[in-house]
Structures are given as C-alpha cells and as structure tokens.
C-alpha cells in the first residue's frame, strides 16, 4: 500500500546567476512499512528532499502526498499538526530541547497536541531504547548515543506515518551507530514503521529494503536490496 508519493519535486535556491537547483524533477513513491535508504554525495540534495518530505521546507514546485493527502496544500497551522502527527524527524545532531528531560523530550509531540501520554507505549519505548533509569536526565547529562536514542523515541512516540532520519549515525562511534541502526530496524520490523534514512554508510544502506541514489538533485538509482 502506498503511503508516500512524490511528484516532480523541484527546489531552487537563490536568484539569477546564483541559482542552485537542489532538487530537479524528483518523483518516487514509498509503500507502507518500507525501509528506504537515500544515498548520495554531499550537496546532492538529500537533506533538502528529507526536509520537504517532513513538511519543514517548502518545494519550489511539485507535490508530496502522504496517505493520499497533498501535504503542501495545507496552511501553516495544518502543516504544523501534520508534522506533529504524521512525521517523526531524527537529526544528525539529535536536536533535543536542552531544558527538558528525557521523558519530556520523548513525549513532546504528544504533549504539544494536548493529549495524554500513553504510558504503556512510553515505557515500552524507553525499555526498547535502553533509557530506563535516565527518564529524568537532561540532554547534556547523556552520551551522544543516548541522546540519539531519545530523539528516536521522540520520532516514534506518535507512531507517525513516516520516520525521516538525516544521517542519524553521522555523529556517533561504530558501536553506538550499530545500536541506533538496530533500533531503527527493530521499529520497522516490530511496528511496521515506514522508514526513510539518509546515510553515507553503505553498511546501513544495505540493511534497507530499497536504496535511492541522488546526484545533483536527480534520482539516478532506485534499487531493491536483495538479501
């Protein structure tokens, strides 16, 4: 079942001579429960694509459909709620709120919605993410790997349609990297979570169901990984 469809996506920065085409007529679709890796050299447009998929950045032209609804046909308020409920974002630099503790950071999207936190799901997540006993710690009291696990928790808490991860292991050592990838894979396998990950590392890309290659803003490869 198709959960995400991208049609003729273009993103242009700057004007006149300084024009940079970050995305150039990108189209693809992703099925529910897919684990997609996006690879490509620096400056190829990977992050721009991810941000547009997440409803954070706006495309110059083209459309994004999530669950068959046009993401950029929504107003700012609706877009914010879309990000809150349908998307989980994971960044290379974790981007946690420094003044909130682990539990608060994880439950942030739920709390923003003004809903009650499902304690069962939270406890399960914390256990899965091996954050037990650190619920009340602030981000600066955690290691890099732990911080990234918190941000994964934040992305998963709402069971979003898609989790988007931008170089989630780029800032971590190999042991922590492996753990993070395992966790992401676990969410994909255990909860059927749709996953799109930008990565440099072939070892990670090879664990995906499908690898999209981007060069100069265009999709130059779309391969299904055969294991």
């Amino acid at each position, binding site marked *: 079942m198709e959960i995400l469809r991208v049609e003729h996506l273009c993103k242009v920065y700057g004007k006149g001579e300084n024009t940079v085409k970050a995305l150039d007529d990108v189209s693809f679709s992703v099925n529910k429960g897919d684990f997609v890796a996006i690879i490509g050299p620096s400056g190829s447009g990977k992050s721009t694509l991810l941000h547009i998929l997440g409803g954070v950045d706006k495309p110059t032209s083209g459309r994004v459909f999530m669950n068959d609804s046009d993401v950029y046909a929504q107003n700012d308020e609706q877009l*914010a709620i879309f990000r809150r409920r349908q998307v989980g974002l994971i960044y290379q630099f974790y*981007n946690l709120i*420094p003044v909130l503790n682990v539990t608060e950071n994880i439950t942030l999207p739920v*709390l923003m919605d003004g809903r009650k936190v499902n304690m069962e799901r939270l406890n399960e997540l914390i256990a899965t993410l091996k954050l037990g006993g650190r619920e009340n710690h602030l981000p600066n009291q955690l290691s890099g790997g732990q911080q990234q696990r918190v941000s994964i928790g934040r992305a998963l808490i709402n069971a979003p349609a898609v989790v988007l991860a931008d170089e989630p292991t780029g800032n971590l050592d190999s042991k922590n990297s492996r753990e993070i990838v395992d966790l992401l894979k676990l969410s994909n396998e255990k909860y059927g979570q749709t996953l799109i990950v930008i990565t440099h590392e072939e070892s990670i890309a090879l664990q995906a169901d499908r690898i999209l290659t981007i060069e100069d803003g265009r999709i130059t490869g779309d391969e299904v990984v055969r294991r």
Partner: protein
Amino acid sequence: MNIFQRTAIAYLKKNKTRTIVTIVGIILSAAMICAVTSLVASFANYALETALYTEGNWHGRQLDVPYSTFEEVADSDKVEQAVYLQRVGYAAAEGCANEFKPYIYILGAGDGADAMLPIRITAGHYPVSADEILLPEHLRTNGGVDFRIGDTITLDIGDRILDGIRLTQDTSCYKFNDSWIEVHNGETLQVRESRTYTIAGTFERLSYTIEKQTAPGYTAITLADAPSDGSRYDLYLRMNKPKDVYGFFKDMGFEEDYNTDVLLLMGVSGYDTVYSVLNGLAAIIILLIIFGSVSLIYNAFSISVSERTKQFGLLSSIGATKKQLRRMVLFEAFAVSAIGIPLGILAGIGGIGITLHFIGDNFRSMFATPIDMHMHVSPASVLIATVVALITALISAWIPSTRATKISAIEAIRQSTDIHTKAKTVKTPWLSYKLFGLSGVLAQKNYKRSRKKYRATVLSLFMSIVLFVSASSFCSYLTDSVEGVFSGAGYDITMHIDDSELNMTPDELLRRISSSTDVTAAAYGKITFLEETMTKSGSLTQEGLEASPVYYADGDMAGVNTFVMFVDNDTYVGLLEQYGLDRDVFFDADAPVALAADTCTSFNYNEQRYDTIDFLNSDEAEFVYKTPKVIEGYTYAGEFMDSSGELMVHYHQDGYDDTISGSDETGLIAIPAGEAYDTGVLRCGKVLDEAPYFMPNNGGVTLIYPMQAMDSVAKDYVGTRLNFYITSDDHAASYAALETVLIDAGLTPGMLRNHAEEAETSRNIVLIIRVFSYGFIILISLIAAANVFNTITTNIGLRRREFAMLKSIGLTNRGFNRMMNYECLLYGCRALLLGLPASCAIAYLIHQTISGGYETRFSAPWDAMGIAMLSVFAVVFATMMYAMRRVKKQNPIDALKSENF
C-alpha cells in the same frame, strides 16, 4: 502547566542572569509607574485635604434662609449632615484702621459647625455659650484692633441698611463714583440690640468662600441662640453621596452655591481641569518610563527569542504551531511579570512613602497650609500601575515573538536568516588596522557583519543618553525657574510705610522694632533712582563700563545706574565707625560726601551662574544727574507726552490732589522737557567693601547718605515711602513680635513682608523638585544601564564559539582584550554620535516649552552630556569586562562543541 509553559520556565531558570535582569527591569518600571500613580494619588489626596482644611468639609450651602428650611433639609435622607450659622448681625469695629472693613460680623454657630466649617482656633477655646465670642486674627493684623482673650466686649449689633435694604457681606460699604473713585455708599448701621461677650479666643480668617476680600465685616463666631422665626440662617450641607448635591439643590430650589474646590478634588465636579493637568503630566512621565522600560524588556525578550530561533525551529519541525510558540513567549512575560510587578509596586509605594516621610512637610510652605503630604495608596493607582507594567511587559514580549515565528522551520534550524553577508559590507578602513591591528579589524568586521545584533546595543545606549540628558535638563530648568526668584538681599523682614501714616517719629518706631524679639539689626531709609546719571569713564571698572547704559553717554562721561539711599543717622554713623571714616567729611548735613555700595549681583543667563560686578575702581567719584528745576510753590509730577507728541514735564501746584479733582486742569503747569531740567552733582568718598544688610540688590551704584542730608541732596526725587529693613535670628518669632509692635503703634501688620520665609519657601520648592527629579533621573538611568548590560552580556554569550575559535587559532589574551576594547569604543561612539545631538534637540524643545512663562536663555546641557559620555563608556567597558571574564573561564574546546542554543 503544559509542556510549553514547562519549557519556558525551564529556560528562564537556565538563563539566570538574563532572567534576573529582565525581572529587575520590570521591577524598576513597575516601581516607577507605581511611584508616579501613587504620587498623583497622594497629591490628589493632599489637595483634597488642603481644600477640606481651607474650605471646610461641606458640599453646598444656601445662605439667608429661615429656620424651617434647615429642619426640612436636615431630615432629608440624602443629607449626611446639615449645620447652620445664625446671622446675628453687624457691629462697629471700634478702633479699626481699615476703612474698607469697619464692622465685626457676628455669626452664631449651630451644632456641628465647628467641625464642618474651617474654623481654626489659634488661641483660647471654642465658645461654649452664646455669651462667648471668637474673634478673627485679622481683626488684629489687618484692622489693627487690640484685644485680649478673656476681656469682655459690648457690641451694639444691628443691620447695615442702604435705601431701606438690608446689606450682606457681599456688598462692600464703598462704591465707585462716576470718576471711578471709591467713595462711601452712605449706608447706616441700624442697631437692634446690645450684647456683651467674653472673648473666648481667636481664629484664623475664614476662607475666601465664606469671607471675601471685599467683605465689610470681620467675621466673628459665637454660639447660635435658640432657633427663632425672626432670625435668618446660612445652611451648610454635606451629602451622603457628594454627587447628589447638584440634584438635591435643584430639587430644593437652592442657588448653585457649592464647595467647588472640594467637589472638584473628590472628582464629582463638571470641571476637571485640575485632574486633567495632573493626569496629563503623569501620563507624559509614565510614557517616558514606558519608553525606557519597553526598550529594556523588549531587548531582553528579543535577545532570548532570537537566541532560541533554533529551538523554535526545532519545536516547529516536530509540530508546534506558531500560536503555541507565541503563547510560550507570552507566558514567559507573564512569569517574569508575576515576580517583577508585585515587587515593583511594593518598591514604588515604599519609595514614595519614604520620600514623602522625609520631605512631606516641605509641602506646607508650598501651599501655605500646616498639612503635611502623606502617602496615599488608592486601589486605582495600584491597579493602573499593574496594568500599565503588565502591558509594557507583554508588548515587549509580543513583538519579538511574532518576528521569531515568522521565520520558517527550516530557516530556523539552519539559522540561515543570519547569513547574508556580502564582502563589501565588511570592508574595514585601513586606519583601524593601523591603530588596533588585526583585533581592531576583527571587531569592526563583527560590528558590520551583524548590524542587527549591534543595533540593539547601540539603540539601548542611545535611548539611555537621550533619557538621561533630557530628564536632567528638564529638571534643571524647573529648578532654575524657582531659584530665579531669590533676591539675594541681606535683610529678613521689610516694612514699607508712607510718611503720612506714621503717628510717631521714624526713630521712635525704629527703636521699638529694634527691641523686638530676636531682631539683630534694623534700619530705615528712603531710596530712589537718579535719572540719567553719568560719571567719568575713568572711574568705572571694565565690568562697570560693559554694564553701562549707553544711550545718554556723553564724551568721556559714561552712564551708570545710580540710586541714592538715605538711612537713619545712627545706622549711617555705625557704618562710618565700621569703616573708620571721618565724621566731619561724611556726616555733614549741608555738603555731604556719600558712601557708595557698588557690588551688584545678577544672574548671568549666558553662563548660567550668578555674576558679581563692582562698578567703581576707586573710592572717590563724581556723579552728574538730571534733576528737575525748582519752581516755587509747585511740585515736580513727571514727564508726559502732550497731544502734539512733545515731551512735557508737569508740575502741580502745592496742595493739588488729582485723586479727587479728576479732570480738573487748574493748578498744573507744563514745561517742555528740554527746558525743565538742571544737572546736579553728587560725590562719593568711600566704596564699601560689601553691601550693608539694608541694601536692596539694585543692579548699579547706590550712594548712601544720612537722613539729615536729605534736604540738601536730591530732595525732589525722594518720595514719601519709608522702608524699614530688619534682620533676625528667628524670622518667624520676630515677625509675630513685630505685628504686635505695629498694632501698638496704630499701624496694620499687613505692611510687613517676610523675605526670609519667602526664600525658605522657594528653597523648599526647589528641594521637592530636586528630590523627585533626581529620583526620576537615577531610576531612568538604572533602567538604561540594565538595558545596556543585558544586551552586551548576551551578545558576548552568543559569540562564545567565535571567541573560542579565535583563541584556538592563536589570538592572544592581549589581542583579545584589544578587540573587545575597540568594540566598546565603537558602541560608545556610535551611541554618542546619535544620542548627543538628539538630546540637545530635545533639551531645546523643553526649553521652548518652559520659557513660555519664565525668561531663560537656552544653553546646551553640557554637564548632563559630560556625565552621559563618561557613564556610557563606564557601563560599556564594565559590562564587557564582566561578560568576558565569564567567557574566558570556559574551555575553548567545550565552547567549540557547544550547540549554541
């Protein structure tokens, strides 16, 4: 608390310094606003207390009604209290010196009148029966009638009748005739009865509302007789609700005779000018405070918000709406206000309370009442202060929050709005490299690169300068306008009297004055200005020549403003002894040589200070003056322009009285001005080292002679006005004693003037203005300093990574300090370059407004600008040092790694 509120609180806790500075800013602004509102409330309350004191605690009155009206009114449920004064009648005031006030007007007070009406007893007690009477103080001081408490007086009481009509206090016993000369109206006093009273005490003259200046009777108070149909009564009413008085009077068919001052100050009058002026003034000051505090609080929020742009972007990317983010900032504003405003209100009330505690009694002399100004906290004043301060904080938070949420999530995450630098904008002049080396160049590049961030600092400095300079120049003009009144003369009390009023020799009166309580010295004299007096230019000092009137100068003769003063012989001899001078030369009745006082003190508006000029450069000088020719049997009467435009000198035949004969032209001769004058010569032989105490500050040379020389010197110029000059150790005690001396001499004490008290009043007013204005300046400056502190520390904090990077690539501590110093200079100079001209312009506007009533020349507020310049650099450098010390403590690697949000 939701997650946003928790985030906001957590953030406030984390950034303690800024949170504290923001709270301090709110405390200061709430304190100042509350100080202004509670000062206005206290002042309004004070004005009301003063009005109640002078006018009495009643709302409306109806004069001249029968007793039945009183009964009717007293029964009304709208009336809280009604009192009456029985019109007992007029009696002749025996021995009264004031021909316009020849009566005692007796009123019989009903129950409660002493509390409702402004009857203030100065000695003795309130009458306990209709046989006792209170006499007014001014019967003695104005009428010169002597009486003792405990004496009995018998008064023949009746009505003033003119043409069969009974006259009241509203009608004077004098009227104008056809030639506009006041003549007696021909009324008679028809005596009804004779009563004997014991004088129970004295009381202060009743207010103008009750006894007008023109009233022909001195109001005396006894107790009312038993009510009778034959008597007439004045009713005074106090309503349960003051505003009911208008409707009630209309219903009763009463005249619209209200206690206007009291109703006005209770806020129930149709006329609200007093309040609108007071409130207008308060509004201006509050606006100034809001201006200052918004800039501080705004900056604090603006910094905290822009610093968290990334945090906002992050929250936004995981689904926070703009509304939620704005609410979060507003919640922060609420949180700091919740702490700051109550503390500020307390501080403001406390500050005004303490101030009024110490200077409240100075208001007495300002308003001529014995009432001190007290702190008066009204719920409205606290509420207004709270609301205004809260609005200030919310506006300050709202603006940056809308700005921050306008940025899209992706821009916020990348913080891309901050990076749009072109090479051209960061070019730096060669000079800064030469002067400050690489550090200087870096500083200037910093400044140019992110002007927006620096604009906040420069703007807050700019506002601080403008606020400080304009506030202090406003205050100095206020003080000047009051200080300008000081005369600088040496005497404490004066008395002016016409020769003809004296019934004893001036020497006898002087003897009595000199022996009065606490009088240290006394003299009498006559003084006059000599027309067109000249002296040899060589006799004048350079300063004297510069001050010389030029229009009648002639050859080597220069004009000099000259007065002659004749003082009593004893005082004159005293001066001769003091200076060791020869009596034969100076004390010669026929060919006298004068003593000269030539020290003139005047206020120099160009230099804004008092100047002292000495006119004469040696002891001996000759003065040539213009004197009218002597015509036997005639008296000089001044210069007049006749119908053809020629200047004529008029002489009146001796005995001619122009006040009576009006248009009668007989007995008057006119001579063309060119032929009417001779010249006279006066000689001085000693210039006194300092002006004697009895010398008024005239602004020229005063030639002093003994009284005995008056006939041989300038006799025609000297008028009939005799002046007594008195110095005293205790001017109030002497003044009181002198009143008695004058009454005993058959004179009225109204001739006395207490200069020492006037000067004291002026000083008190100046003190009050100073206390409030300096208080205002200090608080405004504190706000300004807090503002600068906040902006600079934050900017430094934000650049931690940059500093760490510079250090990591080898910038030395010295180079680092140089860079920071140069940045300080940049801030300071930019702010001063904008701030000083702007404040000069505002000072000029203030001068234009103030100079409407009082002559001042504009001078740039150099002092304030100097202080502003020093303070700007002091605050900037001190803050920089504070901020840098904190930055230097950090390990550069940690800073480099820091995520900067």
